[in-house]
């Protein structure tokens, strides 16, 4: 195989399949290793926090999943734009493949946050701006996935979900800041501040980085796997359609 001249050559499904055939196992093994090391390091080899005790260790699941929940939406936005502008099918399929993963990450972030919130804040759920924004993100994912599921023709579905993703991104961002305004307006100052980054010590920081890397690799492996499945499904339906004609 000759060296590709540009990234766009991987928009060709055959090339994409050939490349991901090699990348997928690497990403999967890397994800497994990073998660194993990061989580083991984080859970067993870090000291307890003097205020929060061992509950602080949920950070190794919570922070990476929350980061991924947002980044996956951004990735979907980029692939949607690529589909709208350059009409590469792999791009639309990758956006479709990423959405349920993003939904799951949002759920993981919400649930781990709730589990941590019970001993720390005394409640599983509070209408804190950050929690609320994640709930909103969750609803946006739901709508996006539902639209993909509702439309049969793949090109129409790609177009409509892409435009929904663009408009949705704008309004998700608006909602995020609107929620800040709303909470400030209703409640006293944020006594439930969630700015965890500020008081993270190096002892927590390094294993956190490893588990973030693990989550990123896990996402890459899953999205490649799912995109490959989508491409194969598309090929099968094309073959069936051809057989019916001929």
């Amino acid at each position, binding site marked *: 195989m000759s060296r590709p001249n540009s990234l766009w050559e991987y928009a060709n499904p055959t090339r994409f399949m050939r490349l991901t055939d090699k990348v997928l196992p690497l990403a999967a093994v890397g994800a497994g290793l990073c998660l194993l090391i990061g989580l083991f390091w984080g859970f067993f080899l870090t000291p307890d926090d003097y205020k929060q005790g061992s509950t602080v260790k949920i950070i190794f699941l919570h922070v990476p999943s929350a980061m991924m929940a947002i980044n996956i939406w951004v990735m979907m936005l980029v692939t949607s734009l690529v589909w709208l502008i350059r009409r590469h099918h792999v791009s639309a399929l990758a956006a479709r493949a990423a959405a349920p993963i993003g939904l799951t990450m949002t759920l993981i972030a919400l649930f781990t946050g709730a589990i941590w919130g019970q001993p720390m804040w005394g409640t599983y759920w509070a209408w804190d701006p950050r929690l609320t924004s994640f709930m*909103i993100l969750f*609803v*946006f994912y*739901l*709508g996006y996935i*539902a*639209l993909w599921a*509702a*439309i049969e023709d793949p090109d*129409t579905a790609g*177009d*409509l979900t892409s*435009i*929904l993703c*663009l*408009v*949705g991104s*704008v*309004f*998700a961002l*608006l*909602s995020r800041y*609107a*929620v800040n*305004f*709303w909470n400030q*307006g*209703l409640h006293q100052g944020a006594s439930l501040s969630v700015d965890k980054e500020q008081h993270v010590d190096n002892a927590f920081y390094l294993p956190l980085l490893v588990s973030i890397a693990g989550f990123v690799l896990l996402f890459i492996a899953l999205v490649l796997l799912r995109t490959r499945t989508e491409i194969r499904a598309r090929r099968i339906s094309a073959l069936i359609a051809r057989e019916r004609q001929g």
Partner: protein
Amino acid sequence: MIALLKRDLALALRSGGGFGLSLAFFLIVVMFVPFGIGPDSGTLAKIAPGILWIGALLACLLSLDRVFQLDFEDGSLDLLATAPLPLEGIVAMKALAHWLTTGLPLSLAAPILGFLLHLPAGTYFWMFLSLLIGTPALSFLGTFGAAITVGLKRGGLLLSLLVLPLYIPTLIFGAQTVVLLADGLSNTTAFAILAALSLFTFAIIPFAAAYALRVNLR
């Protein structure tokens, strides 16, 4: 464009539909709230602005599926799309017609229904004004949702799932305009952002909705 607006208004007013139905729905929602939470006037006064906003928002949602559906089914949407008018303009007119038949009557009805919920004195005018300024954003965003789901057989439920998340900022700033005033605070910021949201949707939504329509008419 004006002719199109007149046609849509005439259709909405004469075909026994849109306008009366959403008002009746709004009234029923407001009437149900005391049933659900009890008739205590202090509690009702506290939640009245939010209830009125949510009621108006849901009533707006109710009539969205007919924005394009009928024209799509009888083929007039294809004619409109091939007409010399830009599709973006058609979308904007459709949204405007939707607002005139739902958002405007709802804004007018809100202070009257607010009376039933013991809306704090002095906020009646702002209740009306916030809905008057905010509901156009709801109509425009809803038109976008209607354009996306127009080709679907049973798009109604999906339409609400797609459109409701987009309504969050409008709801927050709209309700806050009234809530802040009721709490004795300045509501200028909330009201300014609400107006900005409406203007913003006028600027971008016709393009997004027209794109979605072109895809559906392909």
